[in-house]
């Protein structure tokens, strides 16, 4: 009884300390940020002449943008207690789609080919909008199966994982659709904003700016709006959310649509970056995105996770991958190291959770 009291007293005391200390000290992202900064310092000290060079930073930023964007979409689904395995294949399908539309028009996309015959190419912006809309539709498809037919998210998105990859290869007959090198579309993924002058001017890839904008928007939705609160509530206790009058189905639907659109966005950016729509692009990207969300402190059981954490997760992966390349670490070994990091992140998270309850 005394021990029980002591334990209760200590935990209330801890809670008091926690609830009164400044926000940044309580932030769950703090340890993740420390790890990230530690890694940066380590690689900077190992390779001082290369690591902070603008061109190298741009490489890291493109990596972080790619997986950060996918991970933000994944985050929204995972907070509600779901998972989206389709996003890697969706980047391939949407990349191929946007390339086909811009180069050949709707007439080259089944099933429109049978209806339309040969068509003229369509302009870049409409093509991008159509493909983003398509990504949202695929997300809606996932959401409908999950909410109305109670198909597990794992299964329905696994179906799309296969279908999207197959469709990408089918549309292109397996060949990449290459943009001419002067296509304005290429500016999107290859362009950058230069800050400052001379050799040390900071180059920020457009992709990274897209990431920052998306991160701000999604973080705002999650933190400041009722929708965001309902997303966390659905993941924390679906029944409580339901009896509180929250439209649980609509919340889950939104998360899948957002994830589908993020997949399409990354597909478009990668097609532009690579200068082609390739059916083989984005293989296993969904798993990298999930890894980034988990390293960033997101609980796969739902209810927890932040945009900042997820981007830090993607940044940790990006810096490690880049740093190991700089240090000439074998690419096989790189995957082992990243796998170890993932296991450590999850184990630490579970340990923290157990200690708390």
């Amino acid at each position: 009884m005394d021990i029980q009291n002591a334990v209760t007293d200590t935990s209330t005391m801890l809670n008091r300390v926690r609830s009164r200390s400044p926000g940044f000290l309580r932030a769950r992202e703090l340890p993740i940020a420390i790890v990230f900064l530690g890694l940066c310092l380590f690689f900077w000290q190992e390779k001082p002449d290369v690591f902070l060079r603008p061109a190298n930073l741009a490489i890291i930023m493109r990596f972080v943008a790619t997986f950060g964007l996918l991970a933000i979409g994944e985050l929204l689904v995972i907070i509600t207690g779901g998972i989206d395995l389709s996003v890697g294949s969706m980047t391939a399908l949407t990349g191929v789609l946007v390339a086909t539309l811009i180069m050949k028009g709707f007439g080259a996309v089944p099933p429109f080919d049978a209806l339309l015959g040969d068509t003229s190419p369509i302009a870049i912006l409409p093509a991008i909008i159509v493909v983003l809309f398509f990504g949202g539709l695929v997300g809606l498809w996932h959401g409908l199966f999950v909410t109305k037919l109670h198909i597990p998210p794992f299964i329905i998105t696994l179906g799309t994982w296969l279908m999207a990859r197959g469709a990408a290869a089918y549309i292109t007959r397996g060949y990449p659709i290459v943009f001419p090198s002067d296509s304005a579309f290429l500016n999107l993924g290859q362009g950058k904003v230069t800050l400052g002058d001379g050799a040390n001017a900071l180059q920020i890839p457009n992709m990274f700016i897209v990431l920052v904008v998306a991160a701000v928007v999604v973080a705002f939705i999650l933190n400041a709006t009722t929708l965001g609160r309902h997303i966390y509530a659905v993941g924390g206790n679906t029944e409580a959310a339901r009896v509180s009058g929250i439209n649980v189905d609509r919340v889950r639907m939104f998360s899948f649509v957002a994830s589908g659109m993020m997949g399409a966005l990354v597909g478009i950016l990668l097609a532009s970056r690579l200068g082609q729509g390739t059916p083989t692009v984005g293989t296993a990207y969904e798993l990298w995105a999930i890894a980034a969300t988990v390293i960033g402190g997101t609980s796969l059981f739902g209810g927890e996770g932040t945009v900042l954490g997820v981007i830090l997760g993607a940044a940790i992966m990006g810096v490690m991958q880049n740093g190991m390349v700089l240090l000439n670490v074998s690419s096989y070994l790189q995957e082992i190291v990243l796998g170890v990091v993932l296991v450590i992140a999850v184990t630490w998270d579970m340990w923290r959770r157990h200690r708390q309850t």
Partner: protein
Amino acid sequence: MTERTPLVEIRNAKKRFGAVQALRGVDLAVYSGEVLGLVGDNAAGKSTLMKVISGAYIPDEGEIFIDGKRAHITSPEDSRRLGIEMVYQDFALANNLDVAANVFLGREMVRWSLGPLKIMNKRAMEAGARDLIDNLKIDIDSVRLKVENLSGGQRQAVAIGRVTAFNAKVIIMDEPTAALSVAAIGKVLDLIRELKTQGCAIILISHRLEDVYEVGDRIIVLRQGRKVADRPIGEDIHQFREEIVAYMVGAKDDFSPEAATV
């Protein structure tokens, strides 16, 4: 019984789940300022009946009247709009959210809307939750504490508190004292008395007959989906307990179909 209009009245509620007839035509009425105990063995239909009132289940048959007017309750929102609130057995709180977020869950204060996006007024919600916690004398340090860090008693207090925050007329409590310590039970019963003096009608589902005896004005016993007793609580506790148990196990039945006059 006086000729007052009940706050909530159900007539002839029936509900079937597959082969199980959970409710076989139950009548229930509860009046303002009254605590109605609702007891019965497991699977007697208590929770089903309450979920019908709170809109979680739609009855196969039966009518609900609020203040004497026929009401159509097809969702929890409908019943909330009519002033019916439910405190669920398993607290129905989102443990990953803080106290303020749980108090206002599903009806967040909105500062302004941006199309479908509604921007929350977090500060006002925190202040509102703080007032509520203080008024009900609930011992919680900060409304920004996550519910997962609270004790069982604190969680139940939050669950009841969030219901009272929105001028509920009828509060349904499903086993509010089941998972609590003796001291916490006393506080919950005090809270029920306080709500009663404010004119709420309270339906208290409990297997703890002493709790029903202590705060209840009237008791309804359900058995196998039927009402078998509906009587005021008055006699001494031992006699009360014996009689109610007799109803619960089927030894007594005030509404038996054989006894009914057609």
